[in-house]
């Protein structure tokens, strides 16, 4: 087997397994090869959620409906927090749908390494496939929930005529994309940092819950006054949520500079995220 007469280093090698790694190596060829795996993971996520339930995917819709009704009762009827000129139910519905997508993606991607250690310990595939698949399966769930919002929204636009959307609505996929990218980046950074020291994990669930109160989910930015407004503004999600609502409701704050700020933060996090993820994925199995 060892044949030293013919071993020339000028040969091209397909894979090099080394200790170091290129920080900004995206391995796009490899990702493309594993695209079917991504879709299989998505399919698995969707199918397994409603296996052995009677209502099946309808649960996806019941969830935001109940949350919105609860918000309606607590924040609108009891606490009397204003939602501007937008009907409260519509305001809460879009808020919780967006927020759920953000929070679910963050929660699940931030546990990528710890949750999948058994699979990662046995077989190689580009690790990033797993958090990416969570983004896609989250999107499927989001679209189902969002269609519920669209139905209610159409009612308010055409029948009750309570709101008047504008053309900015066509930009909303962009805001959605930035939002989920933000969540994904946070997630992969957190999972990379928690392979060795798990301390951070305990803060995440709590932190995500808390972050909802500085995001315009239950209260529009226009109704936030005083010192706490700065927290809303610094939160990169705020301008995205506001721009989203501006398009659909014709009300809200559409601020190009704050949107640019959010995009900038997302890009910085994306680069950082890929760097730490690339670094950690090579050897996390030894410490997880």
């Amino acid at each position, binding site marked *: *087997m060892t044949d030293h007469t013919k071993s020339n280093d000028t040969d091209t090698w397909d894979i090099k*397994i080394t200790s170091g790694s290129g920080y900004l190596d995206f391995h796009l060829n490899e990702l493309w090869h594993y695209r079917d795996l991504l879709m299989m993971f998505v399919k698995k996520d969707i199918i397994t959620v409603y296996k052995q339930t009677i209502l099946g995917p309808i649960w996806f819709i019941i969830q935001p409906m109940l949350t919105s009704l609860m918000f309606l009762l607590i924040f609108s009827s009891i606490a009397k927090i204003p939602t501007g000129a937008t009907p409260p139910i519509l305001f809460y519905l879009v808020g919780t749908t967006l927020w759920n997508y953000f929070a679910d993606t963050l929660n699940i991607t931030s546990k990528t390494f710890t949750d999948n250690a058994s699979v990662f310990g046995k077989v190689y595939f580009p690790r990033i496939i797993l958090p990416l698949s969570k983004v896609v399966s989250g999107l499927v769930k989001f679209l189902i929930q969002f269609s519920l919002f669209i139905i209610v929204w159409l009612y308010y636009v055409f029948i009750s005529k309570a709101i008047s959307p504008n053309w900015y609505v066509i930009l909303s996929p962009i805001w959605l994309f930035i939002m989920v990218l933000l969540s994904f980046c946070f997630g992969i950074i957190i999972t990379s940092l928690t392979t060795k020291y798990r301390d951070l994990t305990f803060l995440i669930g709590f932190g995500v819950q808390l972050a909802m109160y500085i995001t315009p989910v239950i209260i529009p930015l226009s109704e936030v006054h005083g010192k706490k407004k700065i927290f809303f503004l610094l939160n990169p999600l705020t301008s995205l949520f506001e721009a989203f609502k501006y398009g659909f409701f014709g009300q809200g704050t559409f601020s190009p500079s704050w949107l640019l700020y959010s995009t900038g933060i997302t890009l910085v996090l994306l680069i950082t995220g890929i760097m730490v993820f690339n670094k950690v994925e090579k050897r996390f199995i030894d*410490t997880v």
Partner: protein
Amino acid sequence: MSKEVVVKAENISKLYRLGQVGTGTLSHDLKRWWALARGKEDPYLKIGEENDRTKKTESDYAWALRDINFEINKGDTIGIIGKNGAGKSTLLKLLSRVTSPTTGQIKVKGRIAALLEVGTGFHPELTGRENIFLNGAILGMTKKEIQRKFDEIVDFAGVEKYIDTPVKRYSSGMYVRLAFGVAAHLEPEILIVDEVLAVGDAEFQKKCLGKMSDVASHGRTIIFVSHNMQAVQSLCKSAIYLKSGHIADVGITEKVINNYLSREVKNCIEAKWDDENTAPGNEYVRMKGARINPRLASETDIISVATDIDITFDFVLHKECALNISLFLNTPAGLCIFNVSTPSHQLKPGPHSSTLKIPGRLLNDDIYTIKLFFVKDTSAVVFAIENILTFEVVDEQRTGSWFGKWPGAVRPSLPFTLT
């Protein structure tokens, strides 16, 4: 004949931290960062010791692998052998890219797939069909490839009837068969196989090994890690013998396996007591020596199931008596394979010797220990000695395609006809 190197390992080493990860690692990490930031060498790379699990080491770090170099050519079937803890699994993990080496690099040409476990990523709620696609994709197959192989896989596993049933309702046998079915139909240029063959019944093992030799005969490269010397010998043309993280030997399988067995199996085939005062014995009998003489064709050969063995004892008798010797051949687990006795003879005081001849094709492959009773007047045991000798009998090169452990306490060659 031009040989193409498809796997090349250059100076690979792997350092593991011992003890609990998480206590004190932060301070180590900080020291490491500080050293690297100043452009110095990682302070913890120096202190690792050779990985010998039997000794307690001073350092918190151990080298699971140290400076491993090898090349594998296209179409080779190569076995990796060694004791537990020799670094076999670590090497597999590196080759399969589950983790990366501390230093050095491995270069690979072509697609590589690793079977460290069957059924990785199987989801109990999904049906057999869905799991075939999921597991296939995890192992690196595209959807098209899986579709092409689908019927073959189902056929191999023999689960047509249950293909749309969630695998959580499968019997464990069906589950393993389906899982191996997917793995067996991978078509990488390089296949890495761990001891997955240990699963399933004999018939299924046969199927798996058959499938593997099939793959090997199609010119693909196989790296096979196993404790089962028989399977390694039958499947692999060459072998790497790992010992405490180093390559102890490399080359033709037979040579490497013999080297491994002679170095790792602690045989005690000879015992000698020169000083009469310390030799085992009593006022009747004093041992002088004992040895096993296998009749081997050459010195480097090892005792196999076909080898004729002579066992000889030398002792000094102090009192004249009617003596016979009773010999027990035991396995380390304490099972007595047989008990034989010499005829009783009136012996004079002085040195005597006794020899037992065990023909080949009687013992099964196992480790054996010998216990002796010295019996006076065919009734009273005057002296007994346990574990006086230990030796191992290994399996011979077998024909056919089943390489599991041969059942039975003994393995006699008996006239058995079929017309």
